[in-house]
């Protein structure tokens, strides 16, 4: 899913609708954050405050949960999040060279976002496709059997 750059987050009505979908149950917090993250690309401070007040729990709790899980982000990121696996099975099959190729192609270090707001590059833990290691994931699409040579070809699809 592509999002507009500089997305201000998510409007209060949508947050309210998402909360309603889960009957405002505090135990659904992880699912709620999933929905907000999916729609806005990140979980903004404003969204966290709204969730907290509507679920009647402290904001610190929402923040604590949102920052615990790596699939949630509390800051806006690039439109395409490139997640690279460097766990052992991928490492053994040459993930290091793939990381270097990605950094080179995008002109940013690990953890960085391109200045046009298009790509964010980060690490992920094992994606569970180690049979085709090394692997990366761009938003929800996974790519396996990667080589440094394939990196520019894949990125081209998103440029």
């Amino acid at each position, binding site marked *: 899913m592509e999002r507009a750059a500089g997305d201000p987050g998510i409007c209060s009505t949508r947050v309210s609708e998402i909360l309603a979908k889960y009957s405002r149950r505090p135990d659904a917090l*992880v699912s709620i954050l*999933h929905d907000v993250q999916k729609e806005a690309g990140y979980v903004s401070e404003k969204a966290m405050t709204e969730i907290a007040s509507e679920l009647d729990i402290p904001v610190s709790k929402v923040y604590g949960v949102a920052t*615990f*899980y790596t699939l949630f982000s509390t800051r806006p990121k690039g439109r395409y999040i490139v997640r690279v696996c460097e766990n052992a099975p991928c490492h053994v099959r040459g993930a290091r060279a793939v990381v270097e190729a990605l950094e080179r192609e995008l002109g940013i270090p690990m953890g960085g976002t391109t200045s046009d707001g298009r790509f964010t590059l980060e690490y992920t833990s094992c994606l569970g496709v180690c049979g*085709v290691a090394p692997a990366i994931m761009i938003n929800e699409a*996974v790519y396996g059997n990667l080589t440094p040579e394939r990196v520019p070809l894949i990125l081209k699809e998103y440029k």
Partner: protein
Amino acid sequence: MEFYRSHVLVCGGTPCVLEGCKGVRDALVAEVQRRGLEREVKVVETGCLGPCDLGPVIVVYPEGTLYQKVRVSDVPDIVEEHLLKGRVVARLVGEAPQAGVVKYEEPKYLGVQERIVLRNCGVIDPESIEEYIARDGYRALARCLTEMKPADVIEAVKKSGLVGRGGAAFPTGLKWSFTAKAGADQKYILCNADEGEPGTFKDRLILEGDPHSILEGMAIAGYAVGADKGFVYVRGEYVLSIERLGKAIEQARALGLLGQNVFGTGFSFDVEIRKGAGAYVCGEETALIESIEGKRGEPRVKPPYPGTEGLFGKPTVVNNVETLANIPPILLNGPEWFRRVGTERCPGTKVFTLTGDIKNKGLIEVPMGITLRRVVFEIGGGIPGGRGFKMAQTGGTSGGCLPKELLDVPMDYFTLPEHGSALGSGALLIMDDSHCIVDIARCFMEFFKHESCGKCTPCREGTARLYEIVDKIARGDGQPGDLELLEELGAAMQATSLCGLGQSAPVPIKTMLKYFRDEFHAHVHERLCPTGTCGI
């Protein structure tokens, strides 16, 4: 049922999806139709067929011919040559043995395998409950509900000797009996499909290939312990697993196999999916429970154990996907049947995921107790590129590394720990002799440093220190005494960490220091990396 001359199975597991199996399937269906063969040839999209690194993979029955790396452009040839003229398309069979044709029944695919957990995987269309039922699906549940008392079900699982396949190897029947005995108005069954152990993707492929077997296993567990509600906690990244499982739940509800009054017996059981959000520690059962309750996934202090005080404080059974997939066949065929495979202490099979420097990567199911040598050289086809075997890590990143001297150790939950390792989730990472021990050790430690939840000090500090020391050694700055320090730290973490993460983080490094000490030594004392990896 209609009769087809040929069945073409197209693997629809995630690794094959990545390589474009959907396009191949669509092209096959279209081409079969164009040739007017749709009454003779049936194209079925299945779960994982096993050799995931050769995707997209298809198998044509009745011959059992396995085609690999199939492209849309190959489809006309397959239909024309194979399905019309009965001739194998030689260029798609890969490295063929004497006979010239690769068969799915060969050792490296199905030969030495024994399929209990994967009985339907790669055989049926996972999105069709009818196909599951046609292969005895939900019969075990029916038998439990109509012919057995809950206590009989637990007794049968106990007798089977099944131990949990999530890593801790706790006897499943015993676990159920604790929850069955606990008095409470509400109990839960949780299926642990968080699968974060690097190198493991079996649960993903079981869910993708045979989701109903998990639902049936959970319902049987629910009947046995008196629970009417279940949750499957699936990794958020497992998009296809979540989709197929969701479909399966709807189908089962529609046929009355989940929901109120199952088989008209008064037993009710329903299942909900919960998505994980990227935290390895959430695979730990109490962290998983915290996460379902909407909290940070930090492990709880045990006891109390989930069996008596779990989700929302209620008695809760937590079982791994593979454990649950074993349940229906055990109840259908009996404990004795199950015990005929595997070892005395560890009956049954084990699903392994083969990764790393090995010819045939992918998913296999073999009798428990098989040796590493048979898996690596017979099923895995050995080490590619003319290289030698250096070591295998069993059980994922939290397991130990075994050198070639230990290739003949039988792999089960009790024997591997005797050698400092673990069977764990069943991940097998094979490494050839080009790899540097210290470099690999650093990779393992980086993982734990990142995944430690930080709740307890020994693990939070310990994982960071272990990483620092190994990193220092890799950079050529190791000091005398560092290796001993690693061991001391590891021992302290194993003794004092709150959960299994901190307790098992030192396991890989301990075994590496035990079996490959000279390589560490060379880095520290001679500033030398024997494989030339570390650039010191």
